[in-house]
Structures are given as structure tokens and as C-alpha cells.
């Protein structure tokens, strides 16, 4: 059909069809952001949930209500747990990911490309419930045996599971970042008498730093938003955690357990949307940071 059209019209059809796809996706994303924001804010504006109390209160209980008939909506325990899990898992995964990326690019490039990278990509493909399952049976069991705690659930096993999950994200991006460093930098450094490690430490890592930062932040984004694997090992109790092996609950895991329980439009449901809004806000902030890093790196180059 299209081939009978004059060329200029054909070009317009092509641009229209493909443009429509882009517009559709953009509109859906805008609708998503708008709806989550609207639902999330309605708890504060419509139901009169205290904003300050939401961010600083430590009592979270949607099931019971206080004297005014409002559920307890202090989300600080969830926020603290979410951040604790994110920071801890990144701290565990970071040295391992960067180290293996360095090995796969600088020390054994051929092995890195042919063997190591496919293996790491396999890790990306493992579903998060399977990570959770292994965490539930192996890591939680190990926690019980090592630290002699009754349940073994908590922030530490959650972070360990997450660390394994974000490991491939950071590693593959770090590998790309290191590969993008021009070879002439390495040769120049080696010609000056630097050893390989000095070259890696002072030259390669230094010049790949912005991209490595981006890799780490994308890993953190994934850790912050991951749901089911964490849910299976963290215990799911919405109180302020007293330690790393104390059952806790993150923002995402609370959503998983409570979302289907409360009817659309109820205070409880709206408060859960406020949590979702916070998750969305965090990922927007992460994207912003990545853009800022990209801009800064671009300016320097």
C-alpha cells in the first residue's frame, strides 16, 4: 500500500507511525507520574494525614486506628529500612563489582568477554523470586547458624540477597565504562613506567569515574525498588529495626503485603500510594543525579 504513495508522503507516514509510538509511551509515562502523584498526595490533602508525621513518625499500623479513626501512618521505619538495605547492599556489591570489572577489562580481557560476561549476564536473568527463595532457605539459614538468632530474617540477609542481585547491574555497566577509556591513556601511563595496577588506579579508574558513578547509582536504584526478593528474607514487620538481624519492612515490601488488602479510596490505600509516590520520587532523583553526572563528565572532557 505504502509503496504507491509519493515519496514525500511515505516519509510522512513513517515519521507519523514511529512518532506515534514514542508519543504513546511518553503519554503513558506522564499519566503514570500524574496518577501516582495525585493518588499519593490525596492522603495528605484529602484525608488529612499529617505530612510531617508521615516522614518522622515511627508508628506504622494500617490495621488499627487511633482515637480519631485514623490509621498509624508514621513511615519512618520503612524509610530507614529501605535506605539501610540500599546502602548496605551497595557497599557489599560495589568492591566486588568494580573489582571484577577491572579484572574482565584490564587483566584478562579475552576471558572477560568470552566467559565472565555471559556468566554475569546469566545472573541478570535469574528471576527475583528465585533470589528470594535462595535467600530464604540458604542465607537466612546461614544467619541463624552464624549469629544464633531465632529467625535469621532482617536487614542483613536482605542486603546480601540484594547485593547479589545488583552485582551484575553494576558489573556490566562498569565493564562498559572501563572499556570506553581510550587505550592511549593506558599506553601513555605504562610508557611512563607505571605498573599495571598504578595505571588502573591512577589513570583508568580516574578517567572512568563519572561512568562508574552512574553504574553505582543505577545499582542503587535497583536495590531501592526491588520488592519480592527482599520481602522473602526481611521478615515484614513494620517497626523501627533495632539491628541488622531484626525483622523489618521496606517501603516496597509494605506495598506488596498491604496493597491488595485495603479498598481503593480508603485512607489506608491512599497512604500506600504516598509510599509509591516516594518510591517514584526517589527514582526520579536518581535519574536527575545521573544526568548531572553526565553533564559534568561531558564538560570536563
Amino acid at each position: 500500500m505504502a509503496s504507491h504513495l509519493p515519496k514525500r508522503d511515505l516519509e510522512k507516514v513513517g515519521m507519523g507511525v514511529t512518532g506515534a509510538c514514542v508519543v504513546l509511551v511518553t503519554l503513558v509515562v506522564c499519566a503514570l507520574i500524574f496518577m501516582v502523584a495525585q493518588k499519593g498526595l490525596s492522603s495528605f490533602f484529602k484525608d488529612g494525614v499529617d505530612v510531617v508525621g508521615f516522614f518522622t513518625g515511627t508508628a506504622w499500623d494500617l490495621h488499627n486506628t487511633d482515637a480519631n479513626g485514623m490509621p498509624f501512618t508514621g513511615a519512618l521505619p520503612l524509610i530507614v529500612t529501605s535506605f539501610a538495605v540500599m546502602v548496605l547492599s551497595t557497599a557489599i556489591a560495589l568492591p566486588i563489582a568494580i573489582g571484577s570489572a577491572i579484572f574482565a577489562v584490564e587483566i584478562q580481557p579475552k576471558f572477560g568477554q568470552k566467559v565472565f560476561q555471559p556468566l554475569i549476564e546469566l545472573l541478570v536473568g535469574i528471576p527475583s523470586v528465585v533470589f528470594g527463595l535462595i535467600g530464604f532457605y540458604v542465607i537466612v539459614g546461614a544467619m541463624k547458624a552464624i549469629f544464633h538468632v531465632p529467625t535469621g530474617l532482617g536487614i542483613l540477609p536482605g542486603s546480601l540477597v540484594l547485593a547479589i542481585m545488583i552485582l551484575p547491574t553494576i558489573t556490566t555497566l562498569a565493564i562498559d565504562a572501563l572499556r570506553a577509556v581510550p587505550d592511549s591513556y593506558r599506553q601513555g601511563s605504562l610508557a611512563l613506567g607505571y605498573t599495571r595496577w598504578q595505571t588502573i588506579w591512577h589513570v583508568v579508574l580516574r578517567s572512568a569515574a563519572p561512568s562508574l558513578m552512574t553504574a553505582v547509582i543505577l545499582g542503587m536504584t535497583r536495590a531501592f525498588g526491588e520488592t519480592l526478593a527482599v520481602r522473602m528474607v526481611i521478615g515484614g514487620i513494620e517497626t523501627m529495626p533495632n539491628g541488622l538481624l531484626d525483622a523489618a519492612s521496606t517501603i516496597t515490601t509494605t506495598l506488596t503485603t498491604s496493597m491488595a488488602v485495603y479498598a481503593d479510596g480508603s485512607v489506608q490505600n491512599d497512604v500506600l500510594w504516598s509510599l509509591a509516590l516516594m518510591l517514584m520520587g526517589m527514582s526520579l532523583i536518581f535519574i536527575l543525579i545521573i544526568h548531572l553526572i553526565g553533564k559534568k563528565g561531558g564538560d570536563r572532557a
Partner: protein
Amino acid sequence: MSSIEASQTAQAASLQTAAAEARRAKHIERAGAQDRIATFVLTAIVAFVMLLVVSMVAYILYQGIGMLFHPGFLTEASRANGTQGGVAYQLFDSFYMLFLTLVISVPISLGGAVFLVEYAPDGPITKIASTAIETLSSLPSIVVGMFGFLVFSVNLGWKYSIISGAVALTMFNIPILVRVIQQALEDVPQSQRDACLAMGLTRWEATIHVLIPAAMPAIVTGIVLSAGRVFGEAAALLFTSGMSSPVRLNFLSLNFSSPTCAWNVFRPGESLAVHIYKIYGEGSPQAQEIVWGTAALLMVCVLMFNIAARVVGKMLAKRMTAE
């Protein structure tokens, strides 16, 4: 007098050079040692990571592979809320939802990627679009699931259904696919584009007849790999496709509005991953066997997607270059 002084100075100087020499030797030695230690540590890290991956995969397969050959596990419906019987319906639902997801997401992603790579006028609209896609890719899947629940299940009245799940998965899949296809198109040499345009082809014709075929191996590899990701996704499905399959499904029925018709997209469905989440905490040994069997089944499927992606991509590439 002066000769003694001179010899003393000479002696001091030579001592100084010797000391400097020694310092330098020490420095080089230290740098060399650091280099060796670093290499050792890095090697150890990689060995650890590889051991971790291999042992994880092996552990899952070891725990669950026996169940896969258990008669009825792959062919029977689940009973007693999933703690007995097989996972036949979950397996079917997983593939059915994957199929629907790909049917919706591949054309949209292809169009979007072509626009961004080939047309994309420099300007605010393109910038907004690529930022939107980036945003979608970094949103937690639970948020996508909640949005799907609100819009499709509640507002559109689709309730817990296969189609709600497939649309939620589409939103999760599109950013992945767009990026892969974009990459594939960008990797086609600029000279091919120039040649097409020089021959008088429009950009649309060039894209359809030259660029997409040239990028096809990478596109197919990307689609199959993304299919593996979609296949294991659960968080976005909890509130959209639901956590249960009908007790009885009729695969021969063509009455698409019947709740027992397997092909009815408005019936609830449960993927393998959701099934694991639903019953992982059940204590009975039978349920545990089913959980591990399901995990092994998921792993086998993901491995197959991985292998298929590579094989098909290579085959297509070979066919294209051999001609």
C-alpha cells in the same frame, strides 16, 4: 686538606646517590608488590563471583530438577491452593502472558526506537521522550504493578486478568526493548544509511528495507533476552494478573468469554514466578518440593532463553553475511 675535603664530599655524594638508588629500588619493588597483590585480589574476586553464580544455578537445579521429571508436575493442575499437584496452568499462563506482552511491546518499541534513532528531530520533544523512557526503566516494578492495578484492573474493570498482567509487563518491557533496538540500529554503519539516501530512498524505505534487516540479529537477541526478564517478573503481576489460576482450564474451548477458557484474556492467571512467591512459606515437604521444582523450571526456561538468544542471533547474522 682540600683533597681530603674533596674526597669526603665525593664520598657523601656517592652515599647520597646510593641511598637514592636504594630508595628507588625499594619504590619499584613496592610498586611491583602492589601490582602483584592487586592482581591476586582481583583474580580472587572474579573467582568468587564465578563460583557464586555457578553454585547458585547448580543449587537451584539440584534442588528442583528431580521434580521436573516427576510424573504430572508439568502436566497437572495445582491443587490445594498450589501446595499439591503440578504447575501446568502456571506454565501455560507464563508463556501466554509473555506472548501477549511481546505482541504489544515489540511493535511499539520498534517504532519508538526507529523514531529516536532515524527521525528524532533535535528538540525538546525528543528529549522529553527519551527521558520518559528512561524514567519508565528505572521505576520499581511494584509501582508499575500498582499503576496497572489502578488503571486496568480497577478503572477499566478488567479485574485480575491475563490482559492486565500483560499490559503491566509491557510497560516494564518497553524501555528495555527500546534501548536494545536503539543500540542495534545505531550499530548499523552510517555508510549504509548514506548509501540508501544517495540512491534516492526515503528514510522510511531505508529503515524498512536496509537498516532493520541489518540490525535484525541484534534485535532478535535483545527481544529474546528481554523475554527471559519478563518471564521471571512477579512484582508487577501480583495486583494485575492475580495470584491464582482457575481451578480448571479448557484448552479446547473457543468461547473466549468463558472463565474456564484457557485463551480468555480476561480470566485471572498466575505466572510461575508469582506461584513461587505464593507458596514459598508453606511448610509441608510437598509444597517445598513444588517450590523448588517451579524455581528449577523457571531457571531452565531462563537458561533456554539465554541460549536461544545467542544461537538465533548468531544464525541470523551468519545467514545475512553468507549471502
